[in-house]
């Protein structure tokens, strides 16, 4: 099977279309970063509190918003996490509501607000830690244990929490759901001291403003180091102009990917930055494959114009470029579709980046080489079509 049989497209002839295409997307992204959604920093970079709450029924977002606002928290966003039928919401408190002194104040306040109709003196089993449950069992001693009560009740408490979290997704709606995994006497003793609220907190992320600023700086540094690393390696392996062309290309990819996040108003988290750094490496792969072939062909076709050599090289590697990009895209798409909400931003960055990275190695990197050569000729320098060292 073969997709391309001796392709012969005139890529360089279409460079103005490519340039226009890239400009439209870059400008749209930059415009959005400056004037529309700005850079949608995730919690890692802006600081704040994220509380993921799972309900036993489909929650009414508007009602929740009203309740939390009523409880004295005002700067927050609340939205469905994943699909609404997942019954999970994400409450996003602004960094203003995140106190330096007591980092987890906002989280505690949300839990208090959501726990409505608390029977007096009872504890919410859906949000109780192992230790609290163990302490309760020790006091009640429903299994009438002797000397090893501490250890046995710790195990029971652990089983209760495991059943709640791993079998029932974090929320129990009925004490009977514990039967089978936990000792019946222990289960029977629970309703005296515990009640079941209609929600469980699944995940909490609290980032103070200091760390946010620190991580922002590091993300930018990491990206810059990555680009510099590429420039140095490629300058060493090829000529410096190849390095420059590759780095300009990768910068173009990064800009468009970040721009896309701004246009779509998707949060840029730490893992998204990780994806972007990976793309810097990946996008370079494609560029290097084309450059390697250009270098090889320059030696074979000494009489031809550089633009013809470049065109030929792109066509020769086209099949490989499309295939690997397609296969990587396939795996990344699987990640985007099946990898769950936690990885959604990460896989989105990879999905966008792989498309752009493949396009740019053909449409941006190679034309830069040719443009540089044309510019040298125009300046009256020796039309050396040999920016090559043989290694």
């Amino acid at each position, binding site marked *: 099977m*073969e997709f391309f049989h001796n392709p012969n497209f005139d890529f360089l002839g279409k460079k103005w279309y490519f340039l226009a295409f890239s400009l439209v997307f870059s400008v749209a992204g930059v415009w959005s970063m400056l004037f529309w959604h700005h850079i949608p920093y995730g919690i890692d970079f802006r600081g704040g509190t994220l509380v993921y709450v799972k309900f036993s029924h489909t929650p009414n977002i508007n009602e929740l918003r009203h309740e939390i606002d009523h409880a004295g928290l005002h700067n927050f966003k609340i939205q469905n996490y994943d699909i609404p039928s997942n019954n999970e919401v994400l409450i996003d408190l602004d960094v203003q509501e995140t106190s330096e002194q007591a980092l987890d104040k906002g989280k505690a306040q949300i839990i208090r607000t959501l726990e409505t109709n608390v029977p007096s003196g009872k504890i919410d089993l859906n949000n109780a830690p192992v230790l609290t449950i163990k302490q309760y069992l020790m006091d009640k001693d429903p299994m009438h244990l002797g000397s090893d009560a501490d250890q046995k009740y710790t195990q029971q408490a652990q089983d209760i929490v495991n059943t709640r979290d791993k079998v029932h997704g974090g929320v129990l709606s009925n004490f009977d759901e514990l039967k089978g995994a936990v000792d019946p006497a222990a289960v029977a003793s629970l309703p005296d001291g515990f009640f079941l609220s209609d929600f469980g907190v699944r995940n909490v992320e609290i980032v103070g403003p200091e760390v946010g600023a620190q991580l922002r700086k590091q993300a930018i540094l990491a990206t810059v180091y*990555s680009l510099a690393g590429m420039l140095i390696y490629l300058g060493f392996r090829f000529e410096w102009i190849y390095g420059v062309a590759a780095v300009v290309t990768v910068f173009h990819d990064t800009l468009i990917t970040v721009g896309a996040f701004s246009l779509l108003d998707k949060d840029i988290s730490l893992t998204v930055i990780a994806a972007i750094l990976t793309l810097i490496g990946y996008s370079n792969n494609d560029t290097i494959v084309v450059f390697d072939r250009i270098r090889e062909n320059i030696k074979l076709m000494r009489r031809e114009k550089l633009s013809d050599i470049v065109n030929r090289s792109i066509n020769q590697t086209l099949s490989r470029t499309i295939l690997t990009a397609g296969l990587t895209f396939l795996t990344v798409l699987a990640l985007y579709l099946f990898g769950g909400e936690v*990885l959604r931003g990460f896989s989105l960055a990879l999905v966008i980046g792989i498309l752009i990275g493949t396009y740019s190695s053909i449409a941006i990197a190679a034309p830069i080489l040719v443009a540089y050569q044309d510019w040298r000729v125009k300046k009256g320098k020796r039309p050396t079509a040999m920016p090559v060292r043989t290694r």
Partner: protein
Amino acid sequence: MQKNLLWRLIVILGALLVFLFGILGIPQGLSGHDLLKAMTDRIHLGLDLRGGTHLILQVQVNDAVNVDAQNAIEVLKEQLNKHKISFADISQPDPQNNPDHIQLKGIPPEGHKDLMDIASERLPEYNVSSGANNTYMLNMKPQMLTDLKNRAVTQAIETIRNRIDQLGVSEPTIQEHGLGQYQILVQLPDVDDPGRVKDIMQSTAMLEIKQVIGGPYPSDQAALQDKGGVLPPDAILLPGHGAPGAPPDQEAWYLVSRVSAVRGKDLRDAQPSTDQNGQPSVHFTLTGEGGQRFYNFTSAHVDDRLAVVLDNKVQEVANIKEPIRDTGEISGGSMTEQQAKDLSMILRSGALPAGIKYLEERTVGPSLGADSIRHGVTAAIIGMLAVLIFMLIYYRAAGINADVALLLNLVILLGFMGYFEAVLTLPGIAGVILTVGMGVDSNVLIFERIREELRNGKTPPSAVDQGFSHAWITIVDTHVTTIVSAAILFIFGTGPVKGFAVTLTFGLLANLFTAVFVSRAIFDWVLSRKQRGDALSI
């Protein structure tokens, strides 16, 4: 040729066995459950998959500098008095931002030499400079200051580790967080209640026993009024629990001596116990030296009151009925049994050299971790199957070659993780998937090149040879660039992101071996079984 091939086959089988051992060790049995258990024993799951708490905290190193500077002030006062040099004031002009700066005012000119001698002899870690109007300035030498701050962080790590070990948290990570200044990274797998652990870590546990001079007062204002608006120079006001019998949330302030009779470092042991009312309390024992000091103090102050002060809060006030040598009790407040246990543990673990502040807190509930594992594994299997099937369709027999190489790549990657005790995170699983996608790139590069050479009329053996040798340089280049990216991620990332960098790097290194060495061996084996002139299925 045949012999060479056999040798290569042995290398490949050896690698397979070595890395399978890396993944599984020696499993208990061969059922799915046993294998899974063997695997999770070797490859540790990150916090995001297994649930737990991730904290970043900052050591307030200026606290430690402050203590040192206050010590220096005491030394200066004592020595100046001893040398009969008068002085107007010795203080820290800016304890907030420059706690190591000490200002001396009103030193007569004839005291200059003695002061310099005192400073160089008793306070060698300070630089002295003289200013106008008989003032002098002491500030710590930069190297000493840095050392002091770093020591505070190291000590804090030690103390926190002691405390966490006693809590029985399995596999905790406590290390300096190199990305920030004076920060510590603490990761506690399976801890679902960060509140208690945080309190335990944060408690500076500075225990002091001081003499009570006055109080309790209902507020600090009332105390000031009682003393005519000025506190005695050797006394300080500290908040405490209410007087016995009063409601526990009522404020109470005590005037106590600035100097402590007993300090935290005089403690030898602390154990939970009950006081005479049957309430939970903490019973402590002093060291020999501390006990002697305490005996001297209590002998001199029979019928006075003493205060047990914990972290600058008066815990308990008691009358001294007779000299006490080396034991004491902390009760008061309304301590629960758990609190008494925690407090004695904290006291045993030693005091923190400086306060700590929490900068970041992330808790992953186990339910989310379990979901993440399910999603990650689903995506990995679907992504891999898609690639494996595509390669079979597109390259036919050579596709089998690529698929074998890919599967071996995966085994080596996981084996590496087992050997290096690397942590598998959710982005790490994504890294595994990505490795499959990127790893296949090498195969495609080679196969496309072979097809091209075949089209140009080369014989299969020479096409295979040319394909591999031409693609090799390119493959090295592409791998190096991606590994550079991953290395930078590893340096700058924490937790999940680091896990991603690790799997990506291991995966790509393994790929160099599988896509080139293994795949070549399979090709050679296929070619060796063919007649001259037979076509290659690619």
